[in-house]
């Protein structure tokens, strides 16, 4: 398996820089997910690894060799496209066999008419047929082998695309949002199928998605990207529990992490707006102001005044097994009932809380569940020891 390393890899389209100086390395056998919003450059990066898009600057190394100018085939990669990119005029068997047939072709076999004869001959090769059958069996495609892609469902087409990438036994699998065209149920099924496949083949997978659920459930490591830059590289748990900045904190998690801008006052007091304050009896960052981050499931909701932070119920979303409650902190002047949900603090509760819109409530959290971010840069701050003195 090739060890892949990015050294200041950059991509520009004219004057528009999509990726500027990307540094990372891919470990053997890992399931690396490139996660980020649309337009962040993750698909461009994947295409650069495959050799489908030219690299504008920096070096891409395969096993220590600069591979910037290598052809897609020289890189020995398999690529699964978002749109499946199956050959519509070929049967499923023809699609799966195509890479193997091409490997057997000599240059002159590509002459029109000769190529048809050679393809026909290659397809009759028992060794090739056995390879196709084996992969088809592995992905439960055997009954579909003689059908064309047009007559298959989305999930079946995606499996054919996977089979085509598997059949050559490449060392690196590149998957560009392969599940985004599927419905929710099928996506869940295919997620587990791809994870199982990764365990079975034991090769390196690089998977591009904007869906955090796919990233969290499948990845062994995630690179979160935004505007062509790496925001954080970590395991799924690390990304979720220790977000490197407010972008990662908000991008990963549904509902996302609550971010509350606070002023740090005397006696470990946290102040929000003009009228709201509570005591945070835990470590605090050494700054006069910061952003407090708490995951929705780490917040506790009280129907009265039992919590630390006074609030009001604005939104109740019942999801069956759990309920997401959106609260507005009581930091506003009386009569201000703005409905901008970006300002809400979301709490995730098991079952039904028995609350109603407009009810007064209060929130509380364990100090060890608090994350701190710089007010200006959004970067994560390390909290210092518990302070009882005024912040300088």
């Amino acid at each position: 398996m090739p060890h892949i390393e990015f050294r200041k890899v950059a991509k520009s389209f004219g004057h528009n820089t999509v990726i500027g100086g990307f540094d990372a390395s891919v470990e053997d056998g890992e399931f690396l997910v490139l996660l980020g919003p649309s337009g962040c450059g993750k698909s461009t990066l994947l295409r650069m690894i495959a050799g489908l898009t030219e690299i504008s600057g920096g070096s891409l190394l395969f096993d220590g060799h600069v591979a910037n100018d290598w052809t897609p085939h020289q890189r020995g990669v398999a690529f699964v496209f978002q749109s499946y990119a199956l050959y519509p005029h070929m049967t499923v068997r023809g699609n799966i066999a195509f890479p193997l047939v091409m490997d057997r072709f000599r240059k002159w076999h590509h002459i029109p008419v000769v190529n048809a004869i050679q393809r026909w001959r290659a397809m009759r090769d028992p060794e090739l047929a056995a390879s196709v059958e084996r992969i088809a069996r592995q992905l439960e495609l055997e009954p579909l082998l003689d059908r064309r892609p047009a007559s298959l469902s989305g999930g079946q087409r995606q499996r054919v695309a996977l089979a085509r990438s598997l059949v050559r036994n490449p060392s690196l699998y590149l998957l560009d949002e392969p599940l985004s065209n599927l419905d929710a149920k099928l996506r869940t099924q295919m997620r587990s199928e791809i994870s199982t496949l990764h365990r079975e083949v034991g090769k390196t997978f690089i998977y591009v998605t904007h869906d955090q659920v796919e990233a969290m459930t499948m990845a062994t490591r995630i690179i979160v990207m935004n505007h062509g830059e790496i925001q954080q590289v970590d395991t799924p748990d690390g990304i979720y529990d220790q977000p490197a900045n407010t972008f990662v904190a908000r991008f990963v998690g549904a509902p996302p992490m609550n971010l509350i801008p606070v002023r740090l006052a005397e006696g470990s007091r946290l102040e929000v707006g003009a009228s709201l304050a509570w005591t945070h009896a835990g470590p605090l960052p050494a700054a006069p102001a910061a952003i407090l981050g708490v995951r929705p499931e780490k917040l506790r909701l009280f129907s009265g005044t039992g919590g630390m932070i006074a609030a009001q119920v604005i939104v109740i979303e019942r999801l069956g097994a759990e309920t997401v409650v959106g609260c507005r902190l009581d930091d506003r002047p009386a009569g201000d009932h703005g409905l901008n949900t970006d300002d809400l603090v979301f709490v995730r509760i098991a079952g039904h809380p028995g609350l109603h819109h407009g009810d007064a409530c209060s929130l509380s959290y364990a100090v060890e569940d608090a994350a701190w971010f710089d007010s200006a840069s959004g970067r994560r701050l390390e909290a210092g020891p518990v302070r009882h003195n005024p912040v300088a």
Partner: protein
Amino acid sequence: MNRIPLASVARFVVIAILVVFAGFPVYWMASTALNVSSQLYNTGQVPWPQLGNLPGLIHELGQVPLLRWLVNAGVIAAGTSVLSLLLGSVMGYALSRFRFHGRGAIGFLLFMTQVIPEALIVVPLYAMFIVLGLLNSLEGLVLANVGFSMPVTAFILKNAMDAVPHEIEESALIDNCPRIGILTMVILPLIAPSVAAAAVIGFFAGWNEFLFAVTFLGDPKLWPTSVGLASFIGQYEVPLSAVMGSALVFSLPAIVFFLLVQRRIVAGLTAGAVKG
């Protein structure tokens, strides 16, 4: 009782009129061919075919090398069609898939070839053919025809290729298929209707062509049917029934060819008109 909708009747009437308009020349050709020439000049044509004159017509057609003319026309048409497809598909692929300097200019020049009348370039071409030794050869005539039909072929195929998703091509690249293989094994089969349409255009450009053929082919053995038909015109007489008989025979292969690829052509000409 089921009532026939007025719209259906109107549609039937319109189609019937169109069929009559399209089919009447062929009928008239057949009818004229089965009239005796002297009768045509003296008493005028009988509107319906005189089947009794069929043996006479066959005898009359036997006097001219109609089969040789047809074979020559077939060679020219097939050559024009195949060569136009070969060159047009490569050019269409380049125009569709690659960004290069002068791409727009090439497109414009291709368009210009359709604006220039054949008669305008027949003299310079004749001079070139003398130098290249291509006069009196079917190959030379094919080349001249390709000059006019290939740009049309290239445009048709380019437009069809534009509609083929790039991912399919990139997928083939990943699968170790070179560009020529992508074109012949992936792209062209996907745009088969447009290929058929382009083939028909090339075929008819060669089959019907007259001006280049009559200018460049002095040897009667090399004449295609279009030139052969014109040779019937004598100083004092035109054997109309023989001309029409030959024209009918000349039309039949073209009609058969068109019917064979008709369904694909219709799909090709409407390809990309709706979201598929």
